[in-house]
């Protein structure tokens, strides 16, 4: 009786949780559905009313406008090059630094680690002007390097990888040490293969961040042929686009998000695991 009661309670709890999850999912999805619906409506109609989740009247004109632009493939290519290079470099720097902080002994290790963590507390805007001036002095603006380099040293990446490597049992390394393996060999042959889930998560977050980045590309890439897709799509919008060209704005948002949505659908398992890792579970 008692067991049956517990089972019944458990099922009820499951249903309540499921119901709550569905309700919250719908609430989260509504703005996205609204954005997609608006992207499929004529701009003149949206000027009169933005209400409704169904794209009636319906048009593909807003998407056709984007795909007809000759510069869009170039902007997509720049975004991909920047996001992919940044991801690769962040993974290399973060994993090496994370391994060093987690496993190696060197002078001022604790101080350096704290300094790295302190970087988490410095807002991007605080270093924006010096960073911009520095790259201007080097004559590097309007290059891929300028778009990637300031984002390579990521404190959260180093922290994430340090925490991951700390959790790896020491015994795995000790066996290699008995065979006189160097630190780098241990890192490359043992630790790196073990850290694939953490690296995948960090890589995905970095890629998404790089793809969506707007402020730095806006001021560093001032030539249209060097725009990333976010800056490029913003540049084609007219004044008061949020009232007179709302459908086009929404279509731009959906278009720019698509690669990231696809990436998320493919790798969602790792992203969820990454969130759990980030919360220290």
């Amino acid at each position: 009786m008692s067991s049956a009661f517990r089972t019944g309670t458990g099922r009820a709890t499951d249903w309540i949780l499921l119901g709550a999850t569905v309700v919250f999912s719908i609430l989260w999805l509504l703005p996205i559905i609204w954005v997609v619906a608006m992207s499929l409506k004529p701009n003149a109609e949206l000027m009169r009313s933005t209400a409704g989740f169904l794209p009636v009247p319906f048009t593909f004109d807003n998407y056709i406008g984007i795909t007809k632009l000759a510069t869009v493939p170039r902007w997509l290519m720049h975004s991909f090059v920047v996001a992919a290079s940044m991801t690769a470099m962040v993974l290399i720097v973060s994993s090496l630094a994370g391994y060093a902080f987690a496993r190696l002994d060197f002078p001022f290790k604790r101080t350096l680690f704290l300094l790295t963590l302190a970087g988490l507390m410095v807002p991007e805007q605080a270093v924006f002007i010096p960073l911009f001036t520095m790259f201007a002095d080097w004559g590097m603006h309007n290059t891929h390097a300028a778009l990637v380099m300031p984002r390579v040293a990521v404190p959260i990446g180093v922290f994430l990888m340090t925490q991951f490597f700390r959790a790896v049992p020491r015994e795995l390394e000790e066996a290699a040490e008995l065979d006189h393996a160097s630190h780098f060999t241990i890192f490359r042959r043992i630790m790196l293969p073990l850290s694939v889930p953490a690296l995948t998560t960090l890589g995905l977050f970095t890629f998404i961040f790089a793809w969506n980045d707007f402020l730095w590309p806006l001021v560093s890439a001032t030539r249209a042929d060097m725009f990333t897709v976010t800056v490029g799509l913003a540049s084609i919008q007219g004044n008061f686009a949020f009232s007179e060209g709302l459908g086009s704005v929404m279509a731009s948002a959906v278009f720019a998000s698509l690669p990231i949505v696809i990436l998320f659908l493919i790798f969602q398992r790792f992203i969820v695991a990454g969130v759990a890792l980030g919360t220290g579970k």
Partner: protein
Amino acid sequence: MHHSKTLARLALATALVGSAGSAAFSADISFLRFFGDCQTEYGTVTDVAAANGECGIITVLTNKFNAENTIGAKVVTQTVDWGAYYDQLTATYSTGNIPDVAVMHSSVLPNFSDRDLLTPLGDAFAAAGIDTADFVPAALKNATTKDTLYALPYDLHALLFHVNTDLMKEAGFVNDDGTVRLPTSPEEMLSMGREFKEKTGKYFIAAESQSSEGMMVRLWQSFMWQQGVDVLAADGKTASINTPEGQKAADLIKALYDEGLANTALDYPGAEQAFLNGEAGILINGTWVVDSYNAQAASGEATLKNYQVANVPPIFGASKVWADSHMWVMPKDESRTPEEAEAAMAFMKFLNDNNFQWARTGHLSVRQSVIDSPEFAALPHRGEYSATAENATALPAVQNQRAIFAAMYSDFNAMWLTGTSSADALSAMQDSVDQILRRNR
């Protein structure tokens, strides 16, 4: 510094005069602007009459110049998002791709001219045959800082009253000749608003009341000029905000909201939707939307059927209204060759010659000859607000106008968004603006 400025002006003027009538050459003109990108719609069109809207008209004008100029010049356009435009223009001075011609608001001009980032254009205009005497006074003043002409003014965009004639008729505010009756005093504005609400059940006024457009600050500034008060002194050192005149104007605007004659919940698109859906008698917005609303009314799809435009009425005495200008400037660039400067000036002259086309957007022309022309008068509704060109009041050439504006609207909007008293709102505005002005000195 003074010598180098003079030399730069002389060099430019000499280059332009010296090369007048010279053989064709090849020069790219880098052209930085907002207004959007219409390449998909107008990429190859050179018939300006076929273009509509700011984006369409400037795109086709550019195409036409590229197709027809005889000096071998080619305009290479780069569009930038309006919100980020000035950040990116500033950035070009460091990144090295300084444009030859760029769009600029008059309210922003002092930020660049005071830092010696713009090429003075007076001599070059004279050499190129651009008649500055044809510009209306407010526009010429907008393009000038410290007695130096830095820009080609291209329009005046000012506040207007956009009117739903059917609703005004229902309230009994339409004269026998079909024109609308508008208030002439603060008391009348409130009494008409009450009567309008009683007879129609709708809001008398719709205006952006929530976001960063600061539409009501522009109206308040207009009311201040109507009382003979400049909110910002011409020397940029003092602001007259927390004054008896400021209080009167703020009290009127606050009363419109407090009495439910204006809707507090509208942002910019919301205010437009309310007007187009027949939920308000008067929409306070700028010249830039006239053709768009005219098209909506004519389409038969909107509830708004009979659309009229009116000058902002002289509620506090004088006929004055807030106005800004779009202008073309030549950012200073030491590496620009005389050929490139000449090509850029030829493009500016072409734009000036076609100022009427730009006036088709709804903006007011800055050229008196265009305003007086029959083709301008024939454009939809232009006759209804032609006086705005005379009433338009230029902002003083003070640095950080945008920051000052932002500081004002956040405190001003608090009157109806959080119930702040007008005295407290004006006091806060005065403090915030004083702080910015101190930084300017």
